[in-house]
């Protein structure tokens, strides 16, 4: 089966959108600040071209097209994870205290996601060829949840995210959540859903690109390093603040006692 005219049109539009983003990355020198993201985007662009070529050459139902698509999906998911790590480091590394907390928290959430993915995939006994097909929804959800935790963490500690970094994070998270949903549905109703599934991949990536365009319109500002307090500062004052909060809580809870 060959690609429909609609699908070819959508792929062409997506390709043009990706080229525009490559132009923004080059013009605003984003690659200097975010090398992993820039590499991810360029590799993703070539992956898209490669998949399009396999569909045109072998058709969408061929085994070769299937294998190529899922092998490249594995590469893309791995690179997307690396982009997330790059953004976490860039945002939180200047705050060494909470960075030590954040990376442990994010690693724990990510590992838990991988564990759930492993258990779920193991239950399905997939063949080697179908491994990525079965693993994809779980990996995408693990990625989206980790990014949500990161965004909530930044919000909790009022760490400001640069608009470009926020846009990339929200874009990846949005795409991962939609892909998780898309992959879940295709896993269960593959025969009827496959054509919609293909449209959904390109459309959700298109929406993600719009989010990225907005964030990457301007170059990243120079990172302002925060002025940190001396090490003895935290134990002294945090203890006092927590003590006050604890007393306030006890008092408030006293209201509810008869």
């Amino acid at each position, binding site marked *: 089966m060959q690609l429909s005219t609609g699908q070819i049109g959508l792929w062409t539009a997506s390709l043009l959108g990706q080229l525009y983003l490559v132009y923004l990355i080059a013009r605003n020198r984003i690659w200097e600040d975010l090398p992993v993201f820039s590499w991810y985007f360029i590799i993703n662009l070539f992956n898209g071209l490669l998949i399009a070529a396999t569909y045109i050459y072998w058709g969408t139902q061929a085994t070769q097209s299937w294998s190529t698509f899922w092998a490249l999906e594995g590469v893309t998911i791995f690179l997307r994870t690396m982009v997330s790590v790059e953004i976490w480091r860039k945002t939180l590394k200047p705050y060494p205290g909470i960075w030590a907390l954040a990376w442990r928290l994010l690693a724990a959430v990510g590992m838990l996601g991988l564990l759930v993915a492993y258990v779920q995939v193991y239950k399905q006994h997939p063949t080697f060829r179908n491994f990525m097909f079965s693993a994809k929804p779980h990996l995408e959800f693990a990625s989206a949840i980790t990014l949500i935790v990161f965004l909530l963490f930044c919000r909790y500690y009022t760490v400001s995210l640069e608009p470009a970094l926020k846009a990339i994070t929200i874009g990846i998270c949005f795409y991962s959540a*939609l892909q998780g949903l898309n992959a879940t549905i295709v896993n269960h109703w593959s025969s009827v859903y496959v054509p919609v599934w293909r449209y959904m991949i390109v459309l959700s990536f298109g929406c993600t690109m719009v989010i990225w365009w907005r964030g990457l319109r301007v170059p990243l500002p120079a990172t302002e390093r*925060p002025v940190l307090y001396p090490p003895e500062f935290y134990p002294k004052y945090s203890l006092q603040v927590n003590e006050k909060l604890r007393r306030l809580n006890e008092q408030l809870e006293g209201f509810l006692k008869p």
Partner: protein
Amino acid sequence: MTDTIIYVSLAVVLLLILLMIARGRRQTSEPATHLLPIEELFPRHAWHFAQIRQMISEADLRFLAKRASPECCRRVQKERAQIIRKYVKGLREDFERLERLGRTVAALSPKVSHGMELERLWLSLRFRFVARLLWVRMELGVSYARPLEQLTKMIAGLASETDALLAGIDNLSAQTQDMI
């Protein structure tokens, strides 16, 4: 099928949270490189303690019941309840301000205690939950005069302690800036 429903629900929840984060309160454009001005962190509502204590005194109500018509008493009660609700909301703001102070200190410290951070998060979740529960009780007309008086006294006490704490932080901040 159950798995599919769980995963579809999870995707919807994730997208909703993401939408809330993206659309919600804009983060300050200024990064958390310093503390807020001291006056921004100081508990403000506790200062109105004296007026509120006067307002919630049972003697005052008894006096009013003797002198005014029942309708007037009801109106006064209603207005008092409204003011007290606002006051409790204000106390919650005081709590949040104090909590924010703790988070900012953590963000700007080279090393933090994971236990203390978790404790603060837990205290904050608990406070919000109990405050919401209290709110419901007030809406249901449960008496609040005595416990509120206790809370207000305590916040007033906290206000003076916080003043000393913030003065110390301010002093240390100034010393840190001087060193740079």
